[in-house]
């Protein structure tokens, strides 16, 4: 693994008295909301993994370890204004954009009511026009030019917004990343290219995946700023993405942000990671878990308590229970519906 030299953006006031989030313009209820979505993301993730291991759902892809990056990014965006073309791990992002726990579970169970695809796609293939989430597919990186196209379209219509697209560090090697980033660079489009570097692409560690030290180093090749940020520091990510949003809205063009964290689970429920990484490495990564780090910070600055935690966990557990139960009972699509929606009626 390459040694990471993290350049944190401005961390706000360093005085003990001013919590970082306030320096960033976040109210206490904002960071509580961020933490809430983070925990919901985590609980859903853990539940789905369990359901898969119990044979109840056929497949799951996990975002465990990347919630800091996702929540930090999502909360810097405006779900009523901006559009996202997320990648398959972005559960935290789509939850903030309006997907419900039930929607996620309907997708996990591949039920007819799944708003993403009616059960046609695997979990993690998010979509909702109502929630400004552009549908994604499985071939990696194809969503990146789509985000550029949405930004272009919005500008042609005079609509002020930014578009966000995410991808793994492995996927930043696909030609589509390069072509889309350059397109956005030439046309100064308000796109946020958000690389969630979790150090692995399935079994391939980043030093056998990336010729460069950092994905962010690629930004200069497209004439945009490249920002490297600790993905386990949710406020640092929030700040970096907020700056990118401002740039975009100001007409200053795109930004490439690389948020470094770790993929705690195997690549997917079909993967076994023991052949390519040590248990020690995974355990070590868990100690930097953004969720723990953020909770400690919130408790430290007095906006969160152990009691809040107990209450939140209880509440969210029942949200996840309800969602699971609902999804499990929901009907499957009719077989003949396979033939629907090839073309417009």
């Amino acid at each position: 693994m390459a040694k990471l030299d993290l350049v944190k953006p401005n961390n706000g006031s360093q005085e003990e008295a001013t919590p970082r989030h306030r320096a960033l313009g976040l109210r206490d209820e904002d960071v509580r909301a961020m933490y809430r979505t983070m925990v919901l993301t985590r609980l859903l993730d853990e539940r789905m993994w369990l359901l898969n291991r119990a044979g109840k759902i056929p497949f799951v892809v996990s975002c465990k370890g990347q919630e800091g990056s996702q929540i930090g990014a999502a909360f810097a965006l405006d779900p009523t204004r901006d559009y996202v073309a997320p990648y398959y791990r972005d559960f935290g992002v789509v939850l903030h954009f309006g997907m419900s726990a039930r929607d996620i579970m309907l997708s996990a169970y591949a039920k007819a009511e799944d708003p993403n695809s009616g059960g046609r796609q695997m979990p993690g293939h998010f979509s909702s026009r109502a929630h400004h989430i552009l549908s994604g597919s499985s071939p990696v990186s194809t969503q990146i030019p789509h985000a550029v196209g949405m930004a272009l379209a919005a500008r042609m219509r005079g609509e002020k917004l930014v578009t966000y697209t995410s991808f793994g560090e492995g996927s930043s090697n696909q030609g589509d990343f390069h072509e889309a980033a350059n397109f956005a660079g030439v046309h100064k489009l308000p796109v946020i290219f958000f690389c969630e570097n979790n150090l692995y692409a399935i079994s391939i560690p980043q030093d056998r995946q990336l010729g460069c030290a950092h994905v962010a180093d690629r930004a200069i090749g497209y004439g945009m700023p490249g920002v490297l940020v600790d993905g386990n520091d949710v406020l640092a990510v929030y700040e970096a993405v907020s700056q990118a949003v401002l740039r975009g809205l100001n007409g200053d063009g795109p930004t490439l942000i690389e948020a470094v964290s770790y993929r705690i689970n195997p690549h997917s429920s079909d993967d076994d990671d023991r052949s390519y990484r040590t248990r020690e490495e995974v355990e070590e990564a868990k100690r930097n878990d953004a969720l723990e780090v953020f909770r400690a910070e919130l408790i430290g600055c007095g906006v969160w308590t152990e009691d809040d935690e107990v209450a939140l966990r209880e509440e969210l557990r029942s949200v996840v229970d309800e969602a699971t139960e609902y999804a499990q009972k929901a009907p499957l699509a009719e077989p003949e519906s396979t033939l629907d929606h090839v073309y417009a009626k």
Partner: protein
Amino acid sequence: MAVKLYIDAIREAMQEEMRQNPNVFVLGEDVGLRGGVFRVTQGMIEEFGPERVLDTPLAESAIVGVAIGAAAYGMCPIAEIQFADFIMPAVNQIISEAAKLRYRTQGDWHCPLVIRAPYGGGVHGALYHSQSVEALFYHVPGLKIVTPATAADAKGLLRAALRDPDPVLFFEHKGMYRAIRDDVPEGDYTVPIGKARVVREGDDLTVITYGLMVHHALTAAGQLAADGISTHLIDLRSILPLDRETIVEAARRTGKVLIVHEDNKTGGIGAEVSAIIAEEALFDLDAPIARLCGPDVPAMPFSAPLEAFYMLNPTKIEDAMRKLAAF
């Protein structure tokens, strides 16, 4: 009605739709100041400005991918691929994304995208500026493919494509741009996607073809008519969906069918046309279903005698028609 060049009909369709519909715009390599390498978009940047006649970087996957994003957002992009041969880098975006966006979201998102590409040979374009690429896509549900043979159809089909809510590949034969001219109706007409055209009616044999070969087959049919052999000539116009009804009806009518295309034979459009007939009109046939196509070689060479060997022409078609008529 006025007689217009094929290339002008295409440009007019774009211009008229762009005047009516602010969502329509063109993007591609050199479509702006240069007016496209074939001059299809000539004069358009002057009228619509550089945002709606958008010069892009040299990257086909981005051209199509960005257009898909714009289409999903609500625009109606026309993505120009400079030569059909250069659509290959965009295959992933076309097949994995454009073709499947509606299906995978149950219609929540869709992709009103038109991809225009000049294809075809006989113009000294060599291996990579002559290819027919329609067979690469006609197996892909979710796409539509048209390839007009006349100026009138070019205009009407391009309008239809621009109003279609789903992705349409619009293949224009570069050999016809300035060689084909015909009566183009006035006003706001469309030609429906999925309907073939009966070019001439006849009873002795049916020729089914599309693109430039329609004109060569028509010439050949004239030669046969002089000898009292009457040809039923079908111009498919749409490759996907195919007009099964017209195909089957024509096969039934004459009992003899010759399928002609410039593209190489194996796995080409002719295979599906033949299979449709063998499925639905087998017992109406008086002769094996014949295909006359480009040879199964990787592409058309630059060298003049080799290019001529590759390309079909009226004489080669006439020979095949006479052989079939005499069967």
